[in-house]
Structure formats: C-alpha cells, structure tokens
C-alpha cells in the first residue's frame, strides 16, 4: 500500500508543477506528425517569415515544437499538454493533429501547413473559406500539369506505374484526382497501381512494375519518400522514365519532377497566418495553393532515354539539370 501511496504522491507532484504563462509574448505551438523532409522545410519556411515580419518586432515570438512520431497516443498527450497552457497560435503539420486541435481548442487560431484535402477531412467547410478558426495551404499537386509533363516528355507512355501507400490520405487524394482527370479528359493512359504499406515494400513494388509499364509516377507519399533512390536506380536500370513530386528526387534517378517547394509553402502559410493576425477573418480566407510548381529535368537521364529537350530550354518554370 505504501508503494501505491507514494506513487500517487509523485503523480500529484508531477501534475502540480505547471509552468506559469508569460505575458507579452506570442506563443506558437508547432506540432508535427512525423519527422520527414517536407515537414522540416515547412517549419523552416514558416519560422523564417514569422521571425522577419513586422509582427515579430512588436511581439516576442516563442515557439514550442512537438513531434508525435506517428504515435496516436503521444499525439493526444501533446495536445493535452498544449490545452493546459494554451498558445496563441497552433501550427499543425498533419491532418489527424489538425482534426483533434480544431475540436478541442476551437478558440485558438489553427494554421495547417499543407493540408491535401481539408474539405473531405472535415477541417474546412469549403475551399473558398473554412468557416472556422482555421487557415491552410494545400499541397495538392496540379494533376493537369503533371499529366502534361508526362505527355510532353514521353508521348508514347500509355501505362503509368504508381507506387503509393493507401494508408495516407494525401496519396489517396492525389490518386483519386488523377483517375478522375484521366477518365474525364479521356486521356489514353492506363494506371498500374502498386500499393505499399511500409518503405520496405517499395523494392517488391518497383521490380514488379518492370516490363508492365512505360513510366513510373510517384505521388507525394510519405512512406515511399525514403525509397526514392531505390526507385530511381531500378527504373534507370530498365530504362523506365521516373516522374516524381519532390525536387530532390532529380539527384536520385528521376527523369523529371514537378515539385512543390515546401520551404516556399511554409513561407506562404506564415504569410496567411500574418494576414489573420493583422485583422483578416480566418473564416473567409480561401485555402491557398502553390502558384508555380517547378519542373526540373535530369538531362543525363533524358539523354539515355533519347528525349529531345531542345524545345524546353528557356521556358519559365523549367529547370534542366545535368
């Protein structure tokens, strides 16, 4: 019994040592769902704009950063912790986090760095205005431009292999839009899907695509992201053009990437947040998308695949790397 009593005592001591809230500071809580490069870039861009803004001169900005490491229970407890000492703004990187924060602290301004589809996630009422204390940028890749790129570089590609994790709502949103776009515009491209559930599955998936597809497309998938070098290696070995959605893939064997700059997206998110802090109503601000996605082409790989790049030189938003 003594043991139990002492444990309860420890519990009470733990819970009673709350740090007191300081005045005159602007608290920003940043909660990331997992530590991957796009999220790191989003955080960097966000802080960069915030720190150099007019707002930062008038207020002391204090960041507290949390990482849920893909653990649903830790995520709950992080939000618990934040709800005890409420910050002035919450920057959520990850849809489940945003969903929980919005329900539990509706009075705090919630900023989400790249929500892929905030409307179907129940976070916003519509794309033109969330109707809630919520603003976000979206990382939905421009499907039309993506398909156009594939058709320009490899017009003979009719079977497109896709590797993605059906457990990620962002990838699913991209794939369903891709299917819709292809069928509604009656484009002559057949999708060959290879769902994966862990990064380790990518090897099997990419080898099983060899001979069955004319090109490989990788959506912005957090699970497949770590295996990009492998996909690049295999697709170059078998001369399959590989299209990706992160720019770094160009050094890992991708023929071309139509990518969103997550650092820029983070900056854009911060600008959106500053607009609200300067008096705009978050309920009416539309979900903002990236304006100019960058196309990067690997000239070396294009050469081995006999693709003529001369027409694409000097085009805006096109970057050709050797």
């Amino acid at each position, binding site marked *: 019994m003594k043991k139990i009593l002492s444990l309860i005592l420890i*519990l009470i001591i733990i819970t009673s040592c709350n740090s007191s809230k300081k005045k005159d500071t602007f608290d920003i809580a940043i909660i990331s769902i997992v530590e991957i490069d796009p999220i790191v870039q989003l955080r960097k861009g966000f802080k960069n704009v915030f720190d150099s803004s007019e707002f930062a001169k008038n207020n002391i900005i204090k960041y507290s950063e949390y*990482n849920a490491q893909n653990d649903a229970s830790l995520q*709950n407890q992080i939000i618990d912790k934040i709800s*005890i000492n409420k910050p002035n703004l919450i920057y959520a990187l990850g849809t489940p986090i945003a*969903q929980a924060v919005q329900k539990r602290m509706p009075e705090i301004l919630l900023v989400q760095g790249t929500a892929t589809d905030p409307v179907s996630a129940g976070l916003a009422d519509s794309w033109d205005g969330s109707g809630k204390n919520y603003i976000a940028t979206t990382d939905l890749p421009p499907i039309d431009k993506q398909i156009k790129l594939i058709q320009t570089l490899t017009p003979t590609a009719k079977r497109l292999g896709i590797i993605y994790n059906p457990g990620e709502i962002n990838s*699913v949103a991209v794939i369903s839009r891709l299917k819709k776009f292809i069928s509604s515009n009656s484009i002559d491209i057949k999708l060959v899907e290879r769902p994966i559930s862990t990064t380790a599955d990518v090897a099997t998936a990419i080898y099983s695509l060899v001979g069955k597809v004319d090109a490989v497309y990788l959506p912005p998938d957090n699970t497949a992201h770590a295996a990009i070098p492998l996909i690049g290696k295999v697709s170059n070995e078998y001369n399959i053009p590989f299209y990706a959605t992160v720019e770094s893939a160009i050094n890992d064997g991708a023929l071309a990437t139509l990518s969103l700059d997550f650092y820029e997206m983070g900056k854009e998110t911060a600008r959106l947040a500053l607009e609200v802090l300067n008096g705009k109503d978050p309920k009416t601000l539309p979900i903002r998308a990236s304006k100019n996605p960058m196309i990067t082409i690997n000239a070396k790989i294009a050469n081995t695949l006999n693709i003529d790049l001369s027409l694409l030189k000097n085009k805006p938003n096109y970057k050709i790397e050797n």
Partner: protein
Amino acid sequence: MLDFTLLLILNEGLVFGLFALGVYLSFQWMKFPDLTPDGSFIIGPIVFVKFSMLGFPMFFSIFAGIFAGFILGSITAILNKILKIPSIISGLIVSSASFSIGWIILNKPNQYLESNSEFFNSSMLSNSYSLFFLLLVIVLIVIFLFQVFGKSIWGLRLRAIGENQFLSKDLLISEKLYFIVGLGLSNSIVALSGILFIQRSYSVDINMGIGQTITGLIAMILGLILSSKSLKIWVTVSLIILGAIIHKALILFTLELGLPAESFRLVSAFLIIILFFFMKKVDDNFLKGLRWS
C-alpha cells in the same frame, strides 16, 4: 474539482488502462503473446464510426465495434489453434490485415468524427469531465467483470489451460473453444478502449494502432509489479489501470519538462528496463511467470 492536468492524464490513462487489461487477459491469463491489439485498436473504432455514420443508434454502433474486436481475436486464435500458425505470427497476420480491412470499411485512411459518433457535444472542459466519469464507470464495470469472470468456472478453466494446455484433455474441454473466446474477449476490451480513445483524438486514423500493444504491456507490467504479492483479481486489475495512468503521467511530465518529444520512446524504453529490474527484486519467480518472454 480535479486539477485539469490530472484530469487529462486520468482520461488518457484510463483509456490505456482498458487496453492494458485486454493485453493482460491474453498475456497473463492465457499466456498467449497476442499482437492482435494493434489491429483491434483500429478496427473497433472504425466499425463504430462506420455504423454511426450509417445512422445506427450509438449503443448499437458501440456494440458492433466491440464485436469486431471479438472477431479479430477469435481469428487469431483460429489461426493459431486450428491452422497451427505460431502465436506471434498469427497476431501479426491479423493486425496487419486489419490495416487493409479498416481501409476497405472506411474507403479512406482517415475519418474525422461526425457529431453522431461523438459521445459528448458540449464545451471542451465539461467534455473532459463527462468523459472522465464515463471512463470511470466503464473501468469499474470491467474490473467487476474481471473479478466475476476470473472466479467463474469458465474463467478458472481458461486460466488453467493458459498455465498448462494439456490440462484441457484432463478437464475434457475444448482448448480451441476456450482460446477463441478468450482472445475474442481480450480484443473486445481493446476495441472498446479504441472507441473511447477516438473520443479524445476526434478522428479515426488507420495508422493509430501501430505499436500500441507495447504501451499496453508497459502498463500491464507496472501493474503486476505493484500487485506482486496480491492474489485478488480485482486488486491486480485495478493496479494495472493505475500502471497505465502512471505511464501516461510520466510521458506528460517529460513533455512538461520541455524534453524533446523525440526522447519519449527512450523514456518508455528506460521505463521497461527499470521495471524489469524492480520485478526481479520484488519476486524472483515473477519472470518465470512471464513465460511468453
């Protein structure tokens, strides 16, 4: 009025206390290293959310979710006892399959909670209180059921078979049936804890079950250490709940201390090491009891 921090810890702790009880039933009573909870923790809430979205009454949806957990547990038992697949592998098969099953049921990986799947619709603070009292009632009922079940002829037989599966022949009972029901019950409890869990996270996500069995194990071992000398079922079971609360309090404490969240798995790992060390001090025979290890 309870301190708000304590209230939040108790809520999270009670949810995982239930989870730990499910783990306790399979690991300690049946001596079956069951990994299905990773799966039933997502299938339970997914089935619950699906049914309530289809317009079924709340109680029916909860029951459906719990029953889904029961089915998952019994499938693991069938794989192990009838198809003779090793116990850990059968649990792994079912929990990884439930990833896909959950996806098929929801037709997407993440679903936010609509108002008809929320237990309470009031403001946040009173929500936490209502949830706490609901959890307290549920936990007390489950503790009571454990006590009754453990003393019943069914419970006694289940524990006897767990200790020595050859006993089933002497007792002239079907070992298979007892394992199917036993694992079913253990995973029903886990499914219930999942349904309560989403009342705090406000969304059901098919990734949320990953690694939760370990969390349950930590709470279970903590509880077993605290109750090392007690033979009363209700004492052990209540102390497992307390173990879960302590574990969650420690994690919140590391967050409060400002330690980076990255270190939290390390905290859990150290906790397990320290726990095993204590366990040896408390009772040397204890480790032998954990035969699945």
